[in-house]
């Protein structure tokens, strides 16, 4: 298990050695998340990026124990929430919330908006009556809607507005930590920016700590202070967004950044796209999981799982060839 060496006091959440395996047919195992360690400092936004199958959503959900982790520790404000019995966990659930990707399926179509948000208030025993009504109006205003919208049903709203309702519901219990799981990827481009601005603004105003799960690299670069790059359940590289985007050190990060389409037709296409597909998490490659698609893989890459190496302030890379590749480029 590899514990982040800086257990700094300003970390709100320190994850170490997180593992999640699901049983599959014929006694086989899906290795969804393997040995994931990182920390999230108070008031910052950490981006979790990766392609489908990288384990980013599973990692995010285990942190809230919406899925029970197989192994590992998650120290939230000094307490290992993975070790808490369900009853004590309830108190922590109020402090940690989630915003889902699909604003269409994550709101009950038969409930009015005020009831959807009210349900979250019930969970923290918020009194009923006038005070509750005022609080719901306040939350709707906070996310850029109007108090009257509480009487409406989800289908009366556009996608962007529905995502605002999802955000209001998550914020109703005044959480400190919010996992946003692809909150803008189901939205049209012109509406995405509105929701990103809202998240960024709310984070600053309320001092939220955010884990932002996304596959869109430009969105993560814009919104996040730190980035964790996952591939096939493992962390390839993590560090300050500026460092990871400015000088990516893992071959996978480099490939991801090079293949993302850029709205500039004059840009020269020098990239060699990654060959092949992401392997099955049921039978991941030995050693480095990325080696089957890595242009720099050597025999040694199949032998051992590369450990995270510290290469700069908070910047870690899990690649046995990172230093020679850095010299070569």
């Amino acid at each position: 298990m590899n514990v982040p060496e800086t257990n700094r006091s300003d970390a709100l959440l320190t994850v170490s050695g997180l593992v999640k395996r699901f049983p599959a047919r014929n006694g086989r195992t899906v290795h969804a998340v393997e040995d994931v360690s990182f920390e999230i400092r108070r008031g910052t936004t950490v981006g979790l990026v990766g392609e489908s199958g990288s384990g980013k959503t599973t990692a995010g959900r285990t942190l809230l124990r919406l899925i029970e982790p197989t192994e590992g520790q998650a120290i939230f404000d000094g307490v290992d929430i993975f070790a808490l019995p369900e009853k004590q966990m309830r108190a922590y659930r109020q402090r940690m919330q989630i915003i889902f990707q699909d604003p269409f399926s994550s709101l009950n179509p038969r409930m009015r908006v005020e009831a959807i948000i009210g349900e979250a208030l019930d969970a923290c025993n918020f009194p009923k009556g006038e005070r509750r009504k005022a609080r719901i109006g306040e939350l709707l205003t906070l996310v850029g809607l109007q108090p009257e919208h509480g009487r409406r049903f989800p289908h009366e709203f556009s996608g962007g507005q529905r995502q605002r309702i999802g955000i209001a519901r998550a914020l109703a219990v005044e959480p400190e930590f919010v996992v946003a799981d692809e909150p803008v990827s189901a939205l049209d481009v012109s509406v995405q920016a509105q929701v990103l601005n809202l998240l960024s603004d709310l984070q600053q105003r309320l001092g939220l700590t955010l884990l932002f799960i996304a596959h869109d690299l430009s969105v993560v670069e814009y919104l996040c202070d730190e980035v964790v790059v996952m591939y096939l359940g493992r962390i390839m590289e993590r560090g300050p967004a500026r460092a990871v985007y400015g000088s990516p050190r893992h071959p996978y990060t480099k490939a991801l950044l090079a293949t993302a389409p850029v709205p500039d037709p004059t840009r020269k296409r020098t990239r060699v796209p990654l060959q092949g597909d992401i392997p099955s998490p049921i039978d991941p490659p030995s050693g480095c999981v990325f080696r089957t698609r890595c242009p720099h893989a050597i025999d040694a890459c199949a032998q051992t799982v590369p450990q995270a190496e510290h290469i700069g302030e908070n910047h870690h890379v899990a690649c046995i060839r990172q230093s020679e590749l850095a010299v070569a480029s």
Partner: protein
Amino acid sequence: MTLDADTILSVRNLRTWFRTKYVTAKAVDGVTFDLKRGQTLAVVGESGSGKSVTSLSIIGLLSRPGAIESGEILFRDRSEKVQDLAKLGPRGFRAIRGREIAMIFQEPMTSLNPLYTVGDQIGEMIALHNKLDRHEARKRTLEMLQAVEIPDAKNRLDDYPHQMSGGMRQRVMIAMALACNPSLLIADEPTTALDVTIQAQILDLLRRLQEQMGMSILFITHNLGVVAEIAHEVVVMYAGQVVEHAPVIDLFARQKHPYTKGLLACTPNAARDLEPGGTRKALYSIPGSVPPITNLPPGCAFAPRCEYAIDACHAMPPSLTDAGADRLSRCLRSSEL
């Protein structure tokens, strides 16, 4: 029905409406564009812009109550004969679809039949159009799977769709679409469901196949990054109409419609949106959302969301007019942009 010699498809004032007892949704309302031989024309727009209905109108796959209300879709086939697809019946389309015009969709899983092997599905279509026997069809199928760079193609012929990844399935769809060497490929968001590294592979593949086979591509997408990678020309749609049309380099260099300008500005861009110290500037965002197509404002459909809108914009719908070299814009103030 005249068509320039280098034009393969000319959509002229196309209106595709969905009429019900109570409302008429003018999903496509007066769309005009030309596609040149061997080129890629990207149609960009958000949901509800009419980009998909435009492509379904061209290939004759509209479902009721959608119907072409008026307009022409002139298409030049292999024998240089020009037909108006807007007036073609189901029988006429059967001779064209797959053979002259092929289409690939966003979701390769739902476009393939889960009960047949991919070899059978491609083979069926090859046999149908070319009157080949099973053995010849299988040989040609293998060639196609190799052309779309499916590794170990010989063994993948007998795979079922569920045994393949999303990227592989999209390659199978492309193989099937191109099996009869069509002159026009309609690609409706073909990479939207794929991861970025796989998206790059598919875009590269389409570019290479276009060079080899010379087909023209009508590429429907909402992603401006993808447009920059693949298009020669771009048509931007909003609320059922073309709002801007320009060669790709010109469009990204300078936008002549506020909507296009807004779309580009609201995609996060670190160089523009992050201060050197790391503080974020608020992203530009287009206020409001796309209006419902059944209830459009009387003037310019974009005016209620447009920061350039003046009184005249709200009074009368603007027409698509010249906005400099080879480009068009549907904006009263395009010359000021």
